[in-house]
């Protein structure tokens, strides 16, 4: 019913695909790049729930990613809190901050909402940068231990990659489940018409805050995974630029499409690796790709793929549906 089996199969296929990539590629120097792009994908999937489905823009999501990363890093390193507890606290801090900031912020609309989230992101970034005793300031915070679960230490890059791949698959599955529920419908309803949603008994303020917090939690999960992988953290990774990059991932991948966010995140995180041979021209190409993709694929890469499939399918119901 409602494509659950299809989703399940897709997620399984996706997980399988992620697991065999390293084997296909054979070499392992890019494993960290892959891990990082999957980490970004976790944030993008959450941001897509907020932006693509519920239609609420956030230009400050890097802040939640950073809050969780720093919280877990500081707790486990400076205060020797056990790793699982530190990581849980990191994710929780992201969620709680999202709740507190979300309640007043999500009353704003459109560009004003964009501005407010942007401002929040800048404030958090400055906080990372300036509370030197706590965060280590601009030069960063090192000596963070790598992830360890029940005695198993994710020492090798490949084991960490598998871990992040499984978490991403889980996040994708949860998101797909959410989308195909009354809550998912409520979110999509808010996107098209806030009035009609209210009339259908949907508490729009509550749902907006809910999805904001959920997306912050996803960003938090990504944050703790990031920090216990790189074992180092500096404010530069959580600035305004990264928030914008996250939004770009979602839009370029395809709004309101869980898979789109994954594709967008991987595309934008891996693309620079391919552009690297062009050295200085890289940045120009990157800009050009953004422009060209948006012009020719307005519904994102996932949207483009879907369209391609529809075009290949025999056209039978087309004439009936249109006026």
């Amino acid at each position, binding site marked *: *019913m*409602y494509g*659950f089996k299809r989703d399940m199969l897709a997620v399984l296929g996706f997980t399988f695909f992620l697991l065999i990539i390293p084997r296909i590629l054979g070499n392992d120097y890019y494993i960290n790049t892959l891990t990082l792009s999957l980490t970004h994908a976790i944030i993008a999937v959450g941001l897509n729930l907020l932006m693509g489905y519920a239609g609420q823009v956030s230009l400050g999501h890097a802040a939640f990613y950073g809050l969780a990363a720093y919280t877990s890093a500081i707790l486990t390193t400076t205060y020797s809190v056990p790793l699982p507890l530190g990581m849980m606290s990191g994710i929780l801090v992201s969620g709680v901050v999202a709740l507190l900031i979300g309640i007043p912020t999500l009353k704003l609309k459109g560009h004003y909402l964009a501005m407010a989230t942007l401002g929040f992101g800048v404030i958090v970034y400055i906080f990372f940068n300036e509370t030197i005793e706590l965060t280590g300031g601009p030069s960063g915070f090192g000596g963070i231990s790598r992830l360890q679960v029940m005695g198993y230490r994710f020492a090798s890059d490949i084991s960490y990659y598998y871990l992040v791949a499984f978490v991403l698959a889980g996040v994708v599955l*949860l998101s797909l*489940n*959410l989308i*195909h*529920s*009354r*809550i*998912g*419908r*409520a979110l*999509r*309803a808010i*996107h*098209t*018409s806030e*009035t*009609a*949603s*209210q*009339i*259908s*008994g*949907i*508490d*729009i303020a509550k749902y907006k805050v*809910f999805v904001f917090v959920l997306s912050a939690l996803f960003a938090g999960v990504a944050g703790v995974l990031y920090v216990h992988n790189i074992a180092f953290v500096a404010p530069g990774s959580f600035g305004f630029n990264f928030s914008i990059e996250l939004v770009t991932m979602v839009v370029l991948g395809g709004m*309101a499409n869980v898979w789109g966010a994954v594709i967008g995140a991987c595309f934008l995180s891996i693309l620079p690796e391919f552009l690297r041979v062009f050295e200085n021209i890289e940045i120009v190409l990157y800009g050009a790709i953004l422009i060209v993709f948006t012009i020719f694929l307005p519904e994102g890469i996932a949207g483009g793929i879907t369209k391609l499939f529809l075009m290949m399918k025999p056209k039978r119901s087309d004439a009936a*549906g*249109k*006026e």
Partner: protein
Amino acid sequence: MQQARNDILSCRGLVVNFGGVQALRSVDFAVETGSITALIGPNGAGKTTLLNVVSGLVNADQGTVKFREQDITSLPPHKRAVSGVVRTFQNLEIFYNMSVLENVMTGCHRRIRYSVVDSLLKTPRYWGGEKRCYRYAERELEFVNLMDKKDTPATELPFGSQRLLELARAVASEPTLLLLDEPAAGLNIRETGNLGKLIRRIRDERGITVVLVEHDMDLVMRISDSVTVLNFGEVIAQDVPLEIQKNPQVIAAYLGEDEDT
């Protein structure tokens, strides 16, 4: 007014100002349980504003709204919807990013109750809820005769069907009071005829009280039990249809409007 009768909705002394314009000036308006009440008046008389105040989209500057003996004046719209006040819109507010079926399922939002955790993990409660939701939605689509279009994207429906879809979504949320804002606008004669029958069935089969803002006088006179006339933000008459047609004040108000347009 007539305290003896059983009113589902009663508004007292409603005043709404938009900047310098007084859209409603002390309006009293009551709807009898189980009736089909029409709200008519020239353009700009304040009909839609009154619906907005009742459904909670606009807050009244003064006055109270009572629904089933409870004061709902300060309730937000979604809470009013939950307690049974639901409406449709003149300019169609359907969810264009969904299929026909999903639109109606969204209307069932408050009738199925399972938690976030249920939906994330697809627990049996989720499945139970979704199955019920699906059944409810199918029933309403059959009711408005859109079953064959259930998987069509809502944007691809012809205008008349979109009106029916909005109606189905409203009915799906099991209201006790349904407010319809010009449901016949943009429909042809045949479609209007069907709509009239449908509104009657909504009241007769579902026991839903209906308030109807409408310009199509034929439709109003044919289906409504009571008619309230608004002009310049004031109620100028409230009576059964036959009497309203003879009311000199009402005729004057409408003639006045004709001169304007």
